[in-house]
């Protein structure tokens, strides 16, 4: 049923319906509303889960690791500095092949301190082995939690996943969301049944050390699982579409891209603004389209190369920067297009909550027509 509610509330509700057995989290803006709502659900009996309160994020994710290894469906949520405090545990969770799902209300990294949105936090952990989903609106942010559990827990994958949505821009926005029912979710998402679990009667260990004779193969297996996730997402996303009418089988989506001269590549809530700008540019006769990335890990290189094969130029928007190099997405897109002659121009923009308007997107299209040099977009020259 369509309901108008806050993004955080819709997400907490979706998580509740996924029946996590153990939740451990630590509050941090702008994620806090989610874990507060889940704490209420547990306290008032709407969710039968162990809610472990902890002293910080390192402990929160560590508790999830233990619980997941013991065979429980687990959940956490964080952002920014909180995620960095979890970084060590993130690598461990992936290496132990524990399908923990974590909501990331994307926020900039300090210093300088910023509570506002960009995607630097989750991008900084792109190499940790977690699957990474990015939502355009609160409907996607809600639905992707179900999809994430389904894919992460698949025996062919068994990797943890981030469900990322822009902090404040989505988390604190009221908008209509189709809220699923327990019956729907139970039908879609089977009980967690890991291939291995801690069992006192049949003892095994998770995360033991691997000597140089073994380590490389562990990493290879994780990489293979990431790559297999493409097919598993396709299947689980299609099943989601058949049940609920919203098909998430594709890792990327095109918007008015079929006949576009200029393609904009973007990820997250900015895609909505880009779509509105594209409609206005199209009305003026400008052939512009969007390629939206919904799954950043595994990275859909081949899919992107195919979808962009006909365009004359590409503008990639990055709400992150690998300092000393480029935005993370433009590097990946260039790699995907290696061997083609399509010029690709990268824009780092919207960092630390700098608002991005339709007029900015239009200007970016004009700049892209002029040349392919990467740039920070919207710099206030007087401050430099």
């Amino acid at each position, binding site marked *: 049923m369509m309901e108008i509610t806050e993004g955080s509330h819709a997400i907490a509700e979706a998580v509740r319906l996924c029946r996590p057995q153990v939740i451990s989290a630590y509050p941090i803006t702008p994620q806090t509303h989610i874990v507060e709502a889940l704490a209420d659900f547990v306290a008032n009996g709407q969710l039968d889960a162990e809610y472990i309160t902890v002293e910080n994020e390192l402990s929160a994710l560590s508790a999830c690791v233990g619980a997941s290894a013991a065979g429980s469906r687990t959940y956490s949520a964080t952002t920014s500095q909180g995620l960095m405090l979890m970084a060590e545990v993130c690598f461990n969770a992936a290496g132990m092949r524990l399908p923990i799902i974590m909501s990331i209300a994307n926020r900039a990294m300090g210093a300088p301190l910023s509570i506002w949105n960009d995607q630097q936090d989750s991008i900084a952990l792109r190499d940790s082995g977690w699957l990474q989903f990015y939502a355009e609106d609160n409907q996607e942010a809600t639905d992707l939690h179900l999809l994430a559990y389904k894919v992460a827990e698949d025996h062919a994958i068994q990797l943890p996943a981030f469900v990322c949505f822009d902090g404040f821009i989505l988390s604190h926005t009221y908008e209509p969301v189709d809220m699923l029912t327990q019956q729907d979710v139970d039908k879609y998402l089977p009980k967690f049944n890991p291939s291995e679990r801690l069992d006192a009667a049949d003892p095994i260990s998770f995360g033991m050390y691997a000597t140089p004779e073994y380590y490389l193969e562990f990493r290879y297996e994780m990489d293979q699982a990431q790559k297999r996730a493409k097919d598993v997402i396709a299947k689980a996303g299609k099943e989601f579409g058949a049940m609920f009418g919203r098909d998430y089988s594709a890792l990327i989506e095109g918007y008015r891209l079929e006949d576009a001269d200029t393609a904009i590549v973007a990820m997250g809530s900015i895609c909505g*603004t880009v779509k509105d700008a594209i409609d206005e540019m199209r009305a003026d006769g400008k052939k512009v389209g969007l390629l939206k990335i919904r799954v950043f890990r595994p990275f859909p290189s081949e899919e992107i190369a195919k979808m962009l094969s006909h365009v004359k130029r590409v503008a990639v928007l990055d709400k992150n920067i690998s300092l000393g190099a480029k935005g993370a997405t433009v590097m990946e897109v260039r790699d995907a297009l290696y061997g083609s002659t399509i010029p690709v121009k990268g824009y780092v923009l919207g960092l630390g909550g700098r608002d991005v308007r*339709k007029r900015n997107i239009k200007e970016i299209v004009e700049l892209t027509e002029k040349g392919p040099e990467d740039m920070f977009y919207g710099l206030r020259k007087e401050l430099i």
Partner: protein
Amino acid sequence: MRELRIHGRGGQGSVTAAELIAVAAFEGGVFSQAFPAFGVERRGAPVQAFVRFDDKKIRLRSQVYEPNYIIVQDSTLIKDVNVFMGVRKGGIVIVNTEKKPDYTVPEGVKLITIDATTIALKAIGLPITNTSLMGAFAAATGEIQFSALEKALNHRFPKELAAKNIAAAKVAFDIVKGAA
């Protein structure tokens, strides 16, 4: 698409007003979106909240720069903040004040003043003006039905508190309707 910008001070319920207006609008069958100007909330500091209304799904995520409607919860903000910035021609500005305006709104924009503080003090017993201004907004713009606003308030607040706020909203609604 129509857009509303609410100016207030931290603690006056500007964000709550935006949320409840969006809820009431959705109840009336339009797509709506409400969000705050993201900042560090402090009591008394100037704050903003936004609402969008459209007959189709709203995708735009930027802040509101050229609103059709503006609500000013505290007229002392007018000298500190350019509250009328970007307002569209044909737009409506609602200011909470008991005074005659010593400021002008841009040409082609309708100014409605209402003493929401006195209304709130009488109906609620507190100078919380957001619900009165929601009533004035409903009457002035027609974007939301009073019945939908009533429903949203009943859903949000405990019974007694909701009743007081509905009473405040109704007084303001009737004043603005009567003046029209």
